């Protein structure tokens, strides 16, 4: 019995570690999408933030400087997304894709140009990282993990129970009503995107400062897309998205343990386990999500009829 217990704890710990950046990205995406702006660029923002955080931490030796840099870069890219989609009424999906590709390219360009290490930043020592807190057992997680959990609560409170949240939801459901009430739809959406930038910035910093000791090529590894899938699976609600992120994190943690294991005499291919989150996402998108209702005005640039 204690063996099972001993096996579960690391899995749970692994779940939380893997889920943390997912949770942050999903909450960030929630703000953006509930306000009516599709955000495929979670991946790119997180990646860019990871690089910026690692670079800043390497230069200053301070984890907090790294965190700030990560948030700043992600917010910058969020503003770019807003410029394209809100001010210039551009295609929201294309803008997100562009941001992802841009991040992919620019992080490597600057990483190799500045550090000449094939895309990596110099390894960071403990002072420049958010190492796990000195708390017993499962609670011994990095500070940023707790920030991620707090983000869920903050999202729930703000979106559902504040003036900003009401206006944000109106921007996503019926922007013409918000506009008729005299509130700027554009400004509301920009602010939502900025919140998304903050959260994805923290997620990026987590990757390079907490989960690893620096930036490496494409380190976000598609987690931004998984976070987006989790958001949709969670029907754009904080609780649902949080649960989905935990589920995906759990799958990933279990996958590592399942490597090399045989099921009924057949070796489970490593690649299948790695592909599980994606397969699951597709299955979920095909089957169970069919009727989830997106914010009504999502994806359409708001153009005042007048």
């Amino acid at each position: 019995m204690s063996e099972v217990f001993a096996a579960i704890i690391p899995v749970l710990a692994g779940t939380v570690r893997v889920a943390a950046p997912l949770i942050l990205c999903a909450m960030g995406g929630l703000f953006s999408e509930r306000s009516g702006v599709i955000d495929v660029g979670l991946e790119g923002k997180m990646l860019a933030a990871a690089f910026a955080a690692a670079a800043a931490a390497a230069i200053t030796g301070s984890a907090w400087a790294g965190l700030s840099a990560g948030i700043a870069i992600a917010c910058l890219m969020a503003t770019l997304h807003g410029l394209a989609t809100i001010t210039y009424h551009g295609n929201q999906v294309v803008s997100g894709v562009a941001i992802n590709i841009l991040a992919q390219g620019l992080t490597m360009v600057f990483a190799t140009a500045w550090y000449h290490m094939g895309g990596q930043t110099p390894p960071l020592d403990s002072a420049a990282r958010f190492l796990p807190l000195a708390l017993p057992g499962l609670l011994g997680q990095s500070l940023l993990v707790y920030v991620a959990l707090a983000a869920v609560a903050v999202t729930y409170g703000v979106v559902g129970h504040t003036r900003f949240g009401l206006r944000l939801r109106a921007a996503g459901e019926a922007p013409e009503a918000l506009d008729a009430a005299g509130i700027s739809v554009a400004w509301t959406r920009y602010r939502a995107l900025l919140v998304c930038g903050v959260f994805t910035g923290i997620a990026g910093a987590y990757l390079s400062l907490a989960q690893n000791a620096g930036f490496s090529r494409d380190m976000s590894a598609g987690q931004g897309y998984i976070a987006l899938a989790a958001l949709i699976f969670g029907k754009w609600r904080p609780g649902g998205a949080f649960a989905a992120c935990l589920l995906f994190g759990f799958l990933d943690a279990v996958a590592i343990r399942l490597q090399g294991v045989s099921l009924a005499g057949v070796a489970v291919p490593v690649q299948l386990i790695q592909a599980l989150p994606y397969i699951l996402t597709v299955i979920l998108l095909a089957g169970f999500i069919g009727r989830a209702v997106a914010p009504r005005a999502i994806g359409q640039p708001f153009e005042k009829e007048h």
Partner: protein
Amino acid sequence: MRAKLPRWADLVLIPLANVALAFVAAGLVVLAIGADPFAAVKAMLAGALGDSEAIGYTLYYATNYIFTGLAVAIAFHAGLFNIGGEGQASLGGLGAGLAALALDHTGLGLIVLPAAILSAALFGAAWAAVPAALQAWRGSHIVITTIMFNFLASALMVYLMVNVLIGPDNMSPESRDFGAAASLPLISDWLNAIGIPVLQSPLNLSLLLAAAACVGVWVLVWHTPFGQELRMMGFNPAAAVYAGANPRRITMIAMALSGALAGMVGVNEILGVHHRLLLDFAEGYGFGGIAVALMGRNHPVGIVLAALLFGVLQQGGTELSFAMPQITREMVIAIQGLVILFSGALTNMSRPWFEWPFARFVARAPESLP
């Protein structure tokens, strides 16, 4: 309806302006890493067009971008954003490779090559058909599913190459070499044979396939009733239904054609250049195709021009990273991202800069609304 600019300005000036902006931004990045943008451009152009070998390489890269550009464009016309070009291209290569491995023992190019080309198209189409079906019947957003399928394709290819198709005595995940029958003829060989001396390059018959594909897409989209239904789906699905179209059918056919076109990258790479199955041959062409389609305004003429530009970028970029080592290959990716950004998302940013001079200097007939 913003009809403040004449149509030609809309179709030519604005895209050119957007591309120019992307390159200005790229130049700034080059400056930021301490290199000289103008030297970089010179090195690029020399590397891409300096001699017949370079031109051959440029055209060979451009061939791939034409295929993926057409793939994205045809789906776009139907209102579908196919981000899965990367995965569809990989699967297309798999299809070509499997046919080659199965049939090259015959020694007959006339049997192996058409079979392999068809196989590539079918595999690519199939890989696109699943997300298409999910969109058509379950309403799953095709952007997300095609992104997922890119990851799935990558995992599948790794598994197959490492465990199933790896050639005997190979250390790296590659299949055995194909027989001579499974090779597409090289353009340089043909030109040399008729007395035009050119250096050898990977440019092969696929270039002609790409040209045929351009013509085929042009005729299909703008000159057939099906093409009109396709375009209606993109503009206004309700009107398409009213006109008698079947949205599901159009989604499936459009995506299948799209996947088949992307799969042709596999033909170029596997049958034209590598002559064996391997990994990562399609890297970058899927997303590059998005940039090419956007820049080319989803029209074959524009796509060819944009593909040529990207061919120059890729070949020039490779040479550039030798000539100026601070600039890595990823700079090309960054430029692609900038092009997508300016051509596809910030499209309307440059518009007012043109509307002002047109409004001031060009006399317009008043909008006649009775």
